[in-house]
C-alpha cells in the first residue's frame, strides 16, 4: 500500500515538473530597442496599460517594481542593491532623500509636460519639502480628513475636536500611524504638524491619551471596509479612499476639518545614480501627458495634480468634486509633512509608544 502511494506522489511531481518546463519555454523577455527605465512605485499605483503604451511609443523597456511603504522603499534604494531610475515617494520621504543627497535635479526643459500640465498650486504646496521645486514632480495628492456616516451622528462633523466627543465613544476609528495620529492632535491644539517643541508634543500626547478610551480601533487600511460596513460612525481617512467608499455606501460623508490638515503629495523623483537618466525624463514626461494622467486618475482614483487631465474628466460630478479637488486656497492651515531628522523621528515614536501603551 505504501508503495502505491509513493508511485502516486511521484507521478504527481513528474506531472508538475512537465507543466512547469512547458510554461517556461513560452516565456521569453525582449529587451527594449532604446534601452530601459527602472521605476519604483507604490503597489497598484499606475494603470498597467499606460506602461504598455509607453513601451510601444518610445521603444524603452519599463522595468517596474513596487513598494508598500515609504519606510520599506528607502533602505532598498539606499542599499544600492538595484540602481533605480525613478521612484515615487511621499513628501516627507522626499525631504529625507534630498537631505541625504540621493536625488538628482530635474531638468524641466526635458520634461515639458511637467510645467505645462501640473497646476502651479501643487508646486507651491511642494515647497514645504522641496523648497525650490528642484527635485519632485507631483503625481498624486490628497488630504487627510474625516469620513462619517450621516445616519450614525447627531450633527454634521466639521472639526477634529468632535473626535473627542464622548457621544461617539467606541465609534471612532483613528489612523494607526505616528504622524497621522499626532497630526490630528497637533492641529486641534493649533500647532504645526511638524513641530519639535517638547511642550507642544507633550500636549498632543496627552490629548491622544485622553481620546484613547473613546477610540474603537487604531487601524490603517481597514477604515475603508469598516466604514462601508457601518461598523463605526467616524473615521480618519485619506481623501483618495473617500470617493470609493461613498460609492459603496452613500451614507458616508468626507470632509476636511476646520482646524486644518495634512496635504500629502506623492511625487516622481529621479535618483542620483540613475543609470538611464534620459529615459527617466521621457517616462516622467509621458506620465504628465494629460491623456495618460487621466487614465491613471481613473485607475487609482486619487486626486491628480494634472490640471489638463482634470479638464478631460467627463463625469461632471467627479470633475467638480470637492473631495477629489478641494480648493486649497480656501484654507490657510494646511501643511505638508517634513522629514524631522532621526532625532525627531525617535521622539515621535517614543511618544506614540507611550500613547499606545497607556
Amino acid at each position, binding site marked *: *500500500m*505504501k508503495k*502505491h*502511494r*509513493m508511485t*502516486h*506522489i*511521484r507521478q*504527481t*511531481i513528474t506531472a*508538475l*515538473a512537465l507543466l*512547469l518546463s512547458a*510554461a*517556461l519555454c513560452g*516565456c521569453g523577455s525582449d529587451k527594449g530597442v532604446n534601452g530601459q527605465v*527602472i521605476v*519604483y512605485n*507604490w*503597489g*497598484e*499605483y499606475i494603470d*498597467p496599460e499606460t506602461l504598455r503604451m509607453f513601451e510601444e511609443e518610445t521603444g524603452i523597456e519599463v*522595468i*517596474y*517594481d*513596487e*513598494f*508598500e*511603504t515609504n519606510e520599506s522603499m528607502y533602505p532598498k534604494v539606499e*542599499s*544600492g*542593491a*538595484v540602481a*533605480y531610475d525613478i521612484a515615487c515617494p511621499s513628501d516627507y520621504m522626499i525631504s529625507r532623500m534630498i537631505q541625504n543627497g540621493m536625488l538628482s535635479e530635474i531638468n524641466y526643459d526635458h520634461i515639458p509636460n511637467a510645467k505645462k500640465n501640473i497646476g502651479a498650486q501643487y508646486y507651491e504646496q511642494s515647497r514645504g519639502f522641496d523648497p525650490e521645486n528642484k527635485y519632485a514632480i507631483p503625481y498624486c495628492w490628497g488630504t487627510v480628513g474625516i469620513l462619517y456616516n450621516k445616519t450614525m451622528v447627531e450633527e454634521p462633523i466639521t472639526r477634529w475636536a468632535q473626535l473627542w466627543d464622548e457621544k461617539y465613544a467606541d465609534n471612532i476609528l483613528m489612523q494607526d500611524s505616528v504622524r497621522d495620529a499626532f497630526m490630528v492632535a497637533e492641529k486641534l491644539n493649533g500647532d504645526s504638524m511638524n513641530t519639535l517643541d517638547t511642550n507642544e508634543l507633550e500636549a498632543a500626547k496627552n490629548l491622544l491619551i485622553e481620546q484613547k478610551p473613546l477610540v474603537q480601533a487604531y487601524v490603517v*487600511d481597514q477604515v*475603508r*471596509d*469598516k466604514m*462601508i*460596513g*457601518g*461598523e463605526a460612525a467616524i473615521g480618519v481617512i485619506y481623501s483618495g479612499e473617500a470617493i470609493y467608499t461613498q460609492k*459603496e*455606501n452613500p451614507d458616508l460623508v468626507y470632509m476636511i476639518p476646520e482646524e486644518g490638515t495634512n496635504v500629502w503629495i506623492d511625487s516622481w523623483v529621479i535618483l542620483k545614480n540613475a543609470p538611464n537618466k534620459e529615459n527617466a525624463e521621457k517616462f516622467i514626461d509621458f506620465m504628465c501627458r494629460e491623456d495618460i494622467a487621466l487614465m491613471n486618475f481613473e485607475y*487609482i482614483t486619487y486626486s491628480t495634480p494634472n490640471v489638463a487631465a482634470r479638464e478631460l474628466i467627463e463625469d461632471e460630478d467627479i470633475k467638480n468634486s470637492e473631495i477629489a479637488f478641494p480648493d486649497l486656497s480656501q484654507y490657510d492651515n494646511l501643511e505638508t509633512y517634513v522629514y524631522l531628522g532621526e532625532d525627531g523621528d525617535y521622539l515621535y515614536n517614543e511618544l506614540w509608544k507611550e500613547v499606545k501603551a497607556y
Partner: protein
Amino acid sequence: MKTIAKRIYIALIILFLYAPIGILMVLSFNESKTRAKWGGFTFKWYIALFQNEEILRALFNTLLIAFTSSLIATVIGTVACIAMTGMKRRAKSILMGITNIPMLNADIVTGISLMLLYISLGIKFGMGTILLSHITFNIPYVILSVMPRMKQLNVSTYEAALDLGSSPLHAFFRVVFPDLLPGILSGFLMAFTMSLDDFIITHFTKGVGVDTLSTKIYTEIKKGIKPEMYALSSLIFVTVLTLLILINLSPADQKKSEA
C-alpha cells in the same frame, strides 16, 4: 455527554482552522470589492484573474522558484545525508548543528545577511538570487527528513548487493535509494511548501520587477488587496485539496481490489 463534548471540541478545531479559508472563498464570489458588503454572486474575479498578467506571472514565478529550489535542495540534502553517515560521530554532530542553525535563525536575519552578501559579491539581483536563497534555506529541511530514514537503513543489504557483484552506484540506486525515497519525498514536499510560503527572505533578495505571490500581495496593501487574489487563493486551496484527496484515495481503492 462525553461524546458530545468530544464532537464540539473537534467542531471548534475545524471551525478555527477552516473558517478563514471559507470566508476567503465566499468573498471571491462577491460582486462588491469590499468585504463589508455582499454585492451578489459573480465569477468576474475569476475571469479577471486569468486576464491579469502580473498576478499570473507572480504565480508562475512562485511555482518555478518553489519547484526548482526544492528539487536542487533535495539533491544536495540527500547527498549530504549519505556523506554524513560515513563520518565520525563528532564531525557528524557538528555538521548537523551547522545545518540546524539556519532553520532556527529568524527569517529576517537570513534575508538581510543574504542581501548584504550578494551586494558585497556584486551579484545582480533577480530570479537567480531568489533561487539561491531559497535553496539555502531549503537544504536543512531536506536533511532533517532524510536523516531519520538513513539511520533506519540496514547497511547489510547494501553490502550484500556489493557481494553479489553489483557496482556501488547500481547498488545505491537499487537498494539504498528505494528505502530513502519516502524521506526524500517528504523532504522535497516540505521544502516546496517552505519556499511557497516565504515572504521575508524573498523580499530582501528579489530583483527589480520580479515578484512572487507573497511579495505581490504585500505591495497591494496601500490600495487594498484585490479580490482577484481571493479567487487565486481559493483555486490554490481547492487544487491542493484535490491533490491530497487523490493521493489518499487511490491506495484504498487498490486495497479493495486486492481484497
